[in-house]
């Protein structure tokens, strides 16, 4: 720690940071634009000027840009110095010369950093008399709107999009005051992280196109702390609602998980909550076969009886909260509870959970990924399956080049200089995959092969690192020439990271990644092991246990079960069509509880409407075993309630007791914790519903929330009381604590004078650092130092081609492979059509003329008519199909199939036969 003097008062600050960070961390208001806590300093806007004095005698001082000046012991500065104040006011006047007077029609208005800084600097009178320069805007796709006239040329967008996130279809064009930020041509932004421009741009140039469909000012949004449900990483979010509709999702800072950003699947997937496919009423199958809305009591009575009379099993879901799965498990009994995944998928989740706990290598948070200096990706196309993990790996790729920057005594946060020094250098990233991945541009070496051969690569690397790890026989030369240098580089790194995941459907791959990581740990490295997870609660479901869907089907076949209660799960996505049909035909009664109409709800005898993540409290376990809590941001629509609450009511309806065992959220969390040792800390993740600050709950609405008295004025002149919330310490109200809430309960970032999300600075211990009372969430699992070799002795035989056959592998798509986000209109517009990808040589050998040809794929008893894509990167004898996209949902891939040219006519795009 160092001492600096601000206005002649001494302050202790951290060494190595810049003056702007120091001032902001100490709570001073210094206006700034181009600096961003994650994208760091460039010194472009000149807004953050302060006076720096040579010593106590120096009364004149020098104006310096605080964001590019490192703190030094004994440094004396002034923020309030009249010259500095004047300078900053003139800088903003100059930045505002061309800025339009359009705050009232600007979507950024009310949460605009430019507005805040303008007020802060006191620039209240505009003197410019000249015509303003104007630009023509671009159509940047379904996510981000563009209004270039509002630009103040801070360069943040370009620095985030290109430098930080690696996007290459964006840039700065022109020069002088015509400088233009956007694409060379209109078109959909290609980066998975484009939506962050909305938060990164300090003005209204880039705004949220989905919000614009149902626009609301920040001060009118009801918000709450939430967790993204669109992959297994558990990024923290702040969704906002108004008039019973979800309006947008912004990132919620968590220094360990997602930091400042989100991926576009996570940001724009929320519209499923507002979808036409929402189930808003209980539905009961009528005599004419239709599903008709019925009163809640009738539905409960029906299901209650069915559960009582029949031999019921419960099928949970990897996308449902711990509480919901737990309640279902209690209702049907542990031996009749199933986790709702195929045998293959649940074996993988269990293997991941096992590998993270039985071996000596710790797993990583996303933040820790950024601290690793060599990465091996084994089989997982992370930008498509767990996008933010890809962004973290991109940051990790800078660590080795940044060593040179440190050697030159340049602070790493001096971003422009650091990037000039490092140029195109990239730290060691190695990618072994079935075909091209979106991170290939970072890779030092790429190996492409079938899943089994990828697993063998992992095992081989383990053996090369630690000779006591099992050896791989018959390793071909090309595999060895990949594995050997990788092993050497990983061994030489300080913190090597092995990344894998479930997307290729291979337990062997999970084991191989573990072997490689364990070998590095045994070799004395500070190694890390990271697995992506497919669903937001895959690991939680694995922790709760329960059989897979094959076991469930067996129980039905044997007659030991005849009634199926399915919660937040579309079984059609987890089992092949034949099994799905068999299950439905064997079950006398099928009850489905879910948010959206889907194959299972359409076939059920009774459907109960479940609250989405936005209308419920719950706990999710992310890919690293971190338990995180989410809260309602809007009350569920009238007949809708949390699935765990339905389970409580079914408890009563099926005669299990007089009252629900879980009258409120805290009760079910307590029950969960008392029954499972692993969940013992879950109640402590956040304060209970009884928590109060100065006697008050925490308001989900800003104190400036408008129109509450008018919201229902068309029905009554009396203002209704805000909806009660017995489940949390948050209230659906603008009344609430004036203090800063505990970090797990922060509903939005706002501070006096800071209406934009930069108010977050005021909630952190230091800018960019953890929230005041620590980041919410807790990892529930830990590695185990193992006395002997923990290695898997899996023998994986080399991939053997089969004549005239293809191994069909699933390729995941950020937009489309995850079902909830695919039901969100802006995301749906980017989902791929069904296809089959082959490499050119294989296609030619199979007599396929070329791209776009129609073929019939025979796979697992089905014949699917598809259009061919040629992909020269695909490993030989593989065919890739889009994972989770019809007609491929529910298929356990990889699987062998044959391909034949399609007869003329017929229908494209699959459909069984």
């Amino acid at each position, binding site marked *: 720690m160092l001492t600096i003097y601000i206005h002649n008062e001494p302050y202790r600050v951290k060494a190595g940071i810049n003056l702007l960070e120091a001032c902001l961390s100490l709570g001073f208001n210094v206006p700034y634009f181009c600096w961003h806590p994650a994208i760091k300093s460039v010194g472009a806007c000149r807004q953050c000027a302060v006076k720096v004095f040579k010593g106590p005698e120096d009364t004149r001082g020098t104006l310096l840009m605080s964001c590019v000046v490192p703190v030094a012991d004994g440094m004396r500065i002034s923020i309030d110095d009249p010259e500095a104040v004047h300078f900053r006011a003139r800088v903003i006047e100059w930045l505002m010369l061309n800025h339009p007077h359009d705050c009232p029609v600007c979507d950024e208005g009310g949460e605009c950093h430019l507005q805040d800084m303008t007020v802060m600097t006191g620039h209240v009178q505009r003197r410019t008399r000249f*015509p303003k*320069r*104007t*630009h*023509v805007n*671009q159509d940047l796709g379904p996510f981000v709107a563009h209004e*270039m006239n509002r630009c103040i040329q801070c360069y943040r967008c370009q620095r985030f999009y290109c430098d930080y996130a690696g996007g*290459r*279809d*964006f*840039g*700065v*064009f*022109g*020069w*002088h*005051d*015509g400088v*233009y930020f*956007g*694409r*060379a*041509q209109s078109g959909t932004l290609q980066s998975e992280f484009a939506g962050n421009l909305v938060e990164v741009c300090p003005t209204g140039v880039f705004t949220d196109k989905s919000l614009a469909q149902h626009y609301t000012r920040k001060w009118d949004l009801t918000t709450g702390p939430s967790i993204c449900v669109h992959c297994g990483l558990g990024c923290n979010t702040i969704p906002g609602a108004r008039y019973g509709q979800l309006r947008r999702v912004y990132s919620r800072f968590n220094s360990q998980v997602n930091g400042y950003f989100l991926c576009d699947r996570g940001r724009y997937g929320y519209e499923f909550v507002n979808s036409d496919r929402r189930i808003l009423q209980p539905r009961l199958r009528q005599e004419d076969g239709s599903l008709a809305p019925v009163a809640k009591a009738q539905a409960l009575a029906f299901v209650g009886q069915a559960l009582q009379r029949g031999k019921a099993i419960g099928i949970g879901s990897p996308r449902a909260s711990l509480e919901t799965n737990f309640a279902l498990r209690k209702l049907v009994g542990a031996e009749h509870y199933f986790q709702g995944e195929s045998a293959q998928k649940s074996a993988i989740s269990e293997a991941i959970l096992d590998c993270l706990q039985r071996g000596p290598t710790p797993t990583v948070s996303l933040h820790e990924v950024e601290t690793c200096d060599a990465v091996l990706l084994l089989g997982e196309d992370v930008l498509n399956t767990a996008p933010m993990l890809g962004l973290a790996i991109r940051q990790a790729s800078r660590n080795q080049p940044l060593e040179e920057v440190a050697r030159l005594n340049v602070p790493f946060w001096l971003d422009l200089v650091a990037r000039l020094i490092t*140029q*195109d250098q990239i730290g060691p990233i190695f990618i072994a995959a079935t075909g091209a991945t979106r991170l290939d541009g970072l890779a030092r070496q790429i190996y492409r092969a079938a899943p089994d051969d990828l697993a063998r690569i992992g095992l081989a690397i383990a053996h090369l690192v630690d000779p006591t790890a099992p050896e791989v026989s018959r390793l071909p030369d090309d595999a060895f020439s990949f594995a050997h240098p990788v092993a050497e580089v990983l061994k030489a790194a300080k913190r090597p990271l092995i990344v894998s995941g479930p997307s290729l459907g291979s337990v062997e791959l999970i084991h191989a990644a573990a072997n490689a990581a364990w070998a590095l740990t045994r070799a004395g490295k500070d190694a890390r092991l990271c697995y992506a997870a497919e669903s937001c609660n895959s690991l939680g479901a694995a922790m709760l246990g329960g059989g897979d869907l094959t076991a469930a089907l067996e129980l039905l076949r044997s007659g030991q079960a005849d009634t199926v209660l399915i919660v937040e799960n579309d079984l059609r996505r987890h089992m092949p069509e034949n099994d799905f049909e068999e299950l439905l035909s064997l079950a006398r009664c099928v009850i489905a509880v879910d948010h959206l109409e889907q194959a299972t709800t359409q076939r059920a005898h009774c459907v109960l409407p479940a609250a989405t993540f936005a209308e419920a409290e719950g706990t999710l376990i992310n890919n690293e075993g971190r338990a995180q809590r989410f809260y309602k941001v809007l009350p569920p629509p009238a007949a809708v309630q949390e699935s765990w609450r339905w389970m409580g009511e079914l408890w009563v309806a099926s005669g299990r007791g007089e009252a629900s065992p879980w009258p409120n959220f805290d009760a079910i969390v307590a029950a969960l914790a008392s029954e499972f040792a692993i969940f013992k800390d879950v109640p402590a993740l956040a304060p209970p519903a009884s928590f109060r600050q100065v006697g008050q709950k925490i308001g989900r609405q800003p104190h400036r929330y408008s129109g509450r008295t008018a919201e229902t004025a068309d029905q009554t002149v009396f203002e209704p009381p805000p909806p009660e919330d017995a489940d949390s310490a948050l209230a659906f109200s603008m009344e609430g604590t004036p203090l800063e809430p505990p970090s797990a309960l922060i509903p939005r970032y706002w501070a006096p004078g800071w209406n934009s999300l930069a108010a977050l600075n005021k909630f952190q211990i230091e800018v960019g650092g953890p929230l005041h009372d620590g980041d919410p969430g807790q990892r529930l699992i830990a590695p185990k130092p193992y006395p002997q070799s923990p290695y898997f002795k899996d023998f994986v035989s080399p991939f053997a081609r089969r004549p005239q056959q293809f191994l069909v592998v699933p390729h995941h798509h950020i937009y489309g492979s995850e079902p909830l986000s695919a039901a969100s209109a802006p995301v749906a517009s980017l989902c791929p059509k069904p296809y089959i990808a082959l490499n050119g040589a294989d296609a030619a050998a199979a007599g396929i003329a070329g791209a776009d040809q129609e073929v019939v794929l025979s796979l697992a008893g089905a014949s699917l008519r598809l259009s061919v894509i040629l992909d020269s990167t695909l490993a030989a004898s593989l065919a890739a199909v889009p994972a989770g996209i019809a007609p491929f949902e529910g298929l356990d891939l990889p699987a062998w199939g044959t391909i034949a040219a399609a007869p003329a006519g017929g229908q494209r795009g699959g459909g069984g036969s």
Partner: protein
Amino acid sequence: MGVSPMSSTGVGPVAKKKKLPETRARRPCHEMGSIMLSDEVKKEIDAEARHYPQRRAVVAEALKAVQARRGWVDDESLRDVADYLGLSFDEVDSIATFYNLIFRQPVGRHVILICDSVSCYLTGYEKLLDHLKKKLGIALGQTTADGRFTLLPNACLGLCEQAPAMMIDNETYGHLTAARIDEILGKHE
């Protein structure tokens, strides 16, 4: 797409994608007979690239090489340059549009750069500009209908001691008067 070489108001570069006046309406690239990078151009680029560790460093030189042959840089040539250097279209276009003397729109056979900087401004730039505009019948940023001249403003040509000044193609001209301008223009077909 593309950025006009200079703004029609003369106060700075024109906004991206602003419609050009009718006289300068662009023809689609394929009508302009876009060429692939010739071996000669590639050789020039490679020779330049040997001086730098990154191929990215030669974008400006590569664009100049294209422009030297075509007079301007069309989208397809720009894409060829991008492919040849392993860059994206946007990355190269960022650089192309940064330089006011890389033309992303067709220009006339001769490009007049009239200096609008301090010395020339003080010594009569405005009058000369008016004269040029009238004489050629075009505004700044435009090309005469016969494709003979394009008129662009330029900051200081380094000829202050002979202000007011202009440059046509690679020649500079000082001590300008309306009569001298007429004479100079007459020498350019």
